């Protein structure tokens, strides 16, 4: 079984999140390996998701986070 562009596109988000079954992951990858149009769009989407994820996670953790939280329990 091979996926066409439309079938592949419908699976894009789940593929990027690795939420497809192993078989479906392989089917999508097979299509991307042979379709420059789809692979270009998937790569773009992946970069967008990575950029957003990195940016949102870029929060410096206070060095005394654990101590402050545990202290707040102690004063309860």
């Amino acid at each position, binding site marked *: 079984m091979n996926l066409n562009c439309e079938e592949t596109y419908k699976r894009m988000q789940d593929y990027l999140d690795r*939420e497809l079954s192993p078989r479906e992951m392989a089917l999508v990858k097979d299509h991307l390996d042979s379709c420059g149009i789809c692979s270009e769009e998937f790569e773009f989407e992946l*970069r967008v998701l990575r950029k957003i994820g990195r*940016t*949102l996670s870029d929060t410096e953790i206070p060095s005394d986070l654990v101590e*402050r939280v545990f202290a707040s329990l102690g004063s309860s």
Partner: protein
Amino acid sequence: MMADGPNVPWAVVDRSDFEDQLRPVLPLAFRFAVRLAGDREAGMDLVQDASLLAFRSFHQFVPGTNFKAWFLRILMHRFYRTRQSEERRSTVALADAPESYLYLQAKRIGLPMKSDPVEVILGKADAQMVSDALVRLPAEYRETATLHFVTEMSYAECAETLEVPVGTIRSRLHRARRLLQVSLWEIAEERGYVPAQESV
């Protein structure tokens, strides 16, 4: 800040067991709380409030189940309880959010795909800009996207945390990404990072 909480026999809870479970979750919880609450100070208050509530409810936690999901659920409930009176700020309509919006915009303005078009569009995007973009989303999409992006939880773990079916997480997340891309583009236009679309 003192949290409200049920009148439960929390004093008999094994504190060291609770702290052992909480300690590894705190950095992730802090990042998530900062994104939910909007700044570091409010995020710290939220984590402390949620920790106190969780400590008082720890006798209800079932050993062997997912502590991270349990704790983040408490944190989210606490957040929304303190924000009940806040007016909805969403401005982006799903009908205006096609799939792959940024990709289509990159094509429209002629960005070469062999370079790094995402860097051109989002290179100047800092955490505040992405947070501003998230704020424009309806609450259910904002919370799902924030949870997934910050914690990198699977759909199943997000579903457990938010107490909704996995299919709901999937559809909310997919829609949230569409909305978020529109929202990010709007802000990039407003800030002059990308050329504004000509009005028709």
